[in-house]
């Protein structure tokens, strides 16, 4: 430490040189995305269950450079201060590691993610099966590479299934970004920083029900329609990977192309 006299603080921080320096020509159709994907192609997805020994259920998900880990605890006794309730409770928390983002410590301004995760999962869990008790869902974003919330939601539903919590269906989630005139499926952090609007669809694939839809920015109705169709198509493909992961089949790195015509 002392030997470095006068040098800048030696904490490691991945240099954010690629961020916002090059102007991407997103309006151009024949330009591929920074990671050579098609507009309507997802990043390769990987899921694994049972990664945290101490938790009742856990899952790890890895979508390109977005890496999250979700642990589920309980059902256990609710906190003392809470009111009596005939049905179970769901308690969600999303947090970022300090090294999750390119600039150190920037991932903490996602306070709304916890409540959004709660709303996305609440409708899919059969809360009547564990009256008066609480199920805790802790999501930790290890690396933030864009589309963090959708990955967290899908991963959390897998962790809940691993914990043996009764659910109506698995929950899958995918987001699209509006970039210029294109809809970009499963955007990366870089693409998200240029987006004009985003749509996050949370969907129960076999029940064909939407548990949450978050739209930001300016969207026309046909675009919302198109965006939802793209998302649902991608969600149903993710659900196949998630199912095979739960069934213990080898789901290692399955390339996703969900080209929508």
């Amino acid at each position, binding site marked *: 430490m002392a030997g470095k006299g006068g040098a800048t603080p030696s904490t490691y921080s991945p240099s954010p040189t690629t961020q916002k320096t090059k102007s991407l020509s997103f309006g151009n159709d024949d330009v591929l995305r920074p990671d050579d994907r098609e507009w309507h192609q997802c990043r390769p997805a990987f899921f694994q269950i049972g990664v945290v020994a101490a938790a*009742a259920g856990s899952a790890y998900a890895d979508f390109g450079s977005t890496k999250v880990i979700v642990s589920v*605890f*309980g*059902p*256990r*006794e*609710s906190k*003392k201060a*809470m*009111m*009596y309730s*005939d049905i179970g409770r769901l308690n969600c928390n999303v947090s970022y590691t300090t090294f999750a983002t390119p600039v150190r410590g920037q991932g903490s301004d996602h306070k709304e993610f916890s409540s959004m995760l709660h709303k996305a999962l609440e409708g899919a869990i*059969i809360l009547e099966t*564990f*009256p*008066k*008790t609480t*199920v805790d869902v802790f999501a930790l974003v290890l690396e933030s590479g864009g589309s963090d919330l959708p990955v967290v939601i899908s991963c959390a539903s897998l962790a809940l*299934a*691993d*914990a*043996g*919590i*009764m*659910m*109506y*269906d*698995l929950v899958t989630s995918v987001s699209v970004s509006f970039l210029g005139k294109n809809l970009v499926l499963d955007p990366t952090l870089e693409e998200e920083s240029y987006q004009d609007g985003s749509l996050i669809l949370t969907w*129960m*694939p*076999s*029940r064909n029900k939407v548990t949450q839809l978050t739209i930001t920015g300016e969207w026309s109705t046909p675009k919302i329609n198109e965006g939802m169709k793209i998302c649902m198509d991608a969600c149903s493909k993710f*659900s196949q990977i*998630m*199912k095979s992961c*739960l*069934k*213990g089949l080898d789901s290692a790195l399955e390339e996703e192309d969900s080209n929508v015509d």
Partner: protein
Amino acid sequence: MGKDSQWVTPGEVLGKASKFKAGRGAYVSPDNLTVYASLTGLRRILSPFPTHPTSWKFEFLRPTVEVTGHKAHGAIPEPGSIVIARVTKVMARMASADIMCLGTKSVREKFTGIIRLQDVRATEIDKVDMHMSFHPGDIVRAIVLSLGDARAYYLSTAKNELGVISAQSTAGATMVPISWTEMQCPLTGQIEHRKVAKVGQ
């Protein structure tokens, strides 16, 4: 895998509600009358009253489809379940206890229960003295009366087979029950009062 032992995940269709009843790990959707799985595990079909020779006559008796085999979440107390609990605190009107086992299974997470004065025994409930029934550290067998209030489950020991099943004397030895209200220390011969459970025959 055979048809009767298929590995399913939450949300998978198990059959039509007109053909099957939903057992454990399954539910019926009221929208399209379909039975879905709610857990991960093996799909099993249980025929109605398999030992009953005349069951084929009752066509309305549908087989039950259930999902078992994978880990389920830890047991949680429900009214009517027999629990083993450790007394943590004895007050004038109630004793609080930590539930440790549900039936024969130990709980994964701690649950607290309380035994109220009127639930200690079935007879002469106006003469019950809490301090002559339980001491902190006693292991009691109790039945869950209700989900209780926000804090704890309500437990009852108002049955012969319910009450203290293991207790230590002040000398530190495990006491021997000598009647349904008394236990004796094998080291000092001292007699202490408890609401003793009738164990075995």
